[in-house]
């Protein structure tokens, strides 16, 4: 059992509150990814779990054991740093063995574990090298190896792939997914990369300004974002938002007079101001969706197989829609965008989702 449970965690640097009332459960063997804008507190949360930062209040347990006041080494965690943090003055073998030596692990055991990790990560030929004699990808693998040999209850990763080039990043991403399956490890993972988050995670935690905005399965966040922040954060390009007024009879009126008729959630009352959200990839140019908006095309960004049309509505708002293939329309022409009711998200004035 290596469940991580965090309750009411608060942390501040002087007067600045960095983590505010965080509640989070990381199930045994699950892969949880923390995402959020820069500075929202992801690293701080991860480091608090590791015991590298003291917290102000709250409770943390790992495998049912309260760890609040334990130093990092006694928490049975292992951390993989963004910069890898390999000891420059030790070779690969000793980098991996260092912590075990300090834990007074018997020599034979150390050797067995390091060799096992080296085998899994294909580091065997590199064991005698110093970190500076390794490529970025190899260093990354050593950093992971150092975590593996500790046999921790929980692995903590802070943007481990951000220093790798695009191709290597995809490779390593797949490797990490495999490793997770093989070790049945519990992992908490911080990233900026949406694709990483969506592909790796069992559960994504979206953070903003020190709070958890929403935690859930990747597709749950995608299809049912709890609030405007999550809706805008998950998905790329970002979801379109338009302000609208609820009228009698399930009519949503945009500020330029265009109207959509939808089956509104019961909590919607006539006269409410709401925000409508729909994703670019769910809209089509022309087409026959239930809802339609018209506007003038500002520009079409063409990427080859698809593209993005930026359409200016009469109200002045710009809406982005994905277009497939190579549409013959172009800038300045008028366009009709359509989409389906399933893909319409409605948020109330406080930014909360209405269902």
């Amino acid at each position: 059992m290596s469940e991580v449970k965090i309750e009411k965690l608060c942390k501040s640097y002087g007067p600045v509150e960095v983590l505010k009332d965080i509640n989070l459960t990381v199930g045994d063997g699950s892969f949880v990814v923390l995402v959020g804008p820069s500075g929202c507190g992801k690293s701080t949360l991860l480091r608090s779990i590791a015991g590298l930062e003291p917290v102000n209040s709250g409770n943390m347990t790992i495998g049912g054991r309260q760890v609040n006041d334990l130093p990092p080494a006694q928490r049975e965690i292992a951390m993989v740093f963004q910069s890898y943090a390999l000891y420059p003055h030790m070779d690969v073998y000793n980098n991996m063995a260092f912590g075990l030596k300090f834990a007074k692990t018997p020599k034979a055991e150390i050797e067995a574990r390091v060799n096992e990790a080296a085998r899994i990560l294909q580091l065997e030929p590199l064991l005698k090298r110093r970190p500076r004699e390794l490529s970025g990808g190899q260093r990354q693998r050593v950093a992971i190896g150092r975590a593996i040999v500790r046999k921790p209850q929980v692995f903590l990763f802070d943007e481990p792939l951000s220093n790798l080039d695009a191709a290597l990043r995809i490779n390593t991403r797949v490797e990490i997914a495999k490793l997770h399956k093989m070790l049945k490890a519990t992992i908490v993972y911080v990233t900026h990369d949406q694709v990483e988050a969506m592909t790796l995670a069992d559960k994504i935690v979206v953070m903003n300004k020190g709070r958890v905005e929403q935690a859930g399965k990747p597709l749950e966040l995608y299809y049912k974002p709890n609030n405007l922040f999550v809706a805008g954060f998950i998905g790329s390009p970002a979801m379109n938002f338009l302000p609208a007024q609820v009228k009698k009879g399930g009519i949503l009126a945009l500020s330029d007079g265009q109207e959509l008729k939808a089956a509104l959630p019961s909590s919607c009352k006539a006269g409410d101001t709401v925000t409508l959200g729909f994703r670019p990839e769910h809209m089509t140019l022309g087409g026959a969706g239930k809802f339609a908006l018209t506007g003038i095309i500002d520009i079409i960004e063409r990427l080859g197989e698809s593209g993005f049309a930026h359409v200016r509505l009469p109200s002045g708002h710009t809406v982005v829609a994905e277009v497939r293939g190579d549409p013959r329309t172009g800038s300045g022409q008028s366009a009709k965008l359509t989409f389906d009711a399933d893909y319409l998200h409605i948020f109330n004035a406080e930014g909360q989702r209405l269902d």
Partner: protein
Amino acid sequence: MRKSASAIAVHGILILYTALALFPILLVIMNSFKARKAIFGSPLALPTPTTFSLIGYDRVFGDSSIVSYYLNSITVTGGTIFFTLLFGAMAAWALTEYKFRWNTLLALFLAVGIMVPIRLGSVSIIQLIVELNLINTLTALILVYTAQNLPLSIFILSEFIAQIPKDLREAGRCDGLSEYSIFFYIVLPLIRPAMATVAVFTMIPVWNDLWFPLLLAPTGGKQTITLGIQQFLGQYITDWNAVLSALSTAIIPVLILYVIFSRQLIRGLTSGAVK
């Protein structure tokens, strides 16, 4: 055309200045290997088989205390370097790594010693050393020199320690190292180059100092080589062979060390000055 002319001019000036810088040193060394007559007869000539003489050196090393003065200097310089580096690195680590209420104030307190020469407190240093019963001991010199060199050493080492990535220290914590082990097993090995710089840089003024040996250990066989040579020169003032040889005896080892360490020394001087 103009380019090469100005290049030649620059080299000309530099060569002239280099000659000016080296001439007195070479002159002394050269003449120390000559007989008295040749020293005065042809001071600018290299020693030849006929003028060659080691009589001055006989006199210098005949005074057996010169050797023990060398040992004193080595002990004092070595001890000072050891304590300056060890205590300096420890303090630098604590000041950069740990938060505590007096951190900034303490750093400022230590910085005072970079600018204010410790010599100004000499009167009280002597009283203190007398009270501690350390007069005419090498310990007194080591203590005073360590106090004198700690501030700059802490300052330089702090800069290097601050450059060690935070992740690395935290990896150590995750690996189960105590704070003490992090310092001794991770930080110390990583700042070795900086320590070499500080070492070379501490060594020179300590080795060359005249003031504190004169005040704290002027007699009793505990003189450093600099003071010892000074006293020797005073004694043999009219014996030119002995004087020149004594000077050379003091110059040559420093020159050899300088040639070996000049790169580090100059790096040390510059890193110490980048404020």
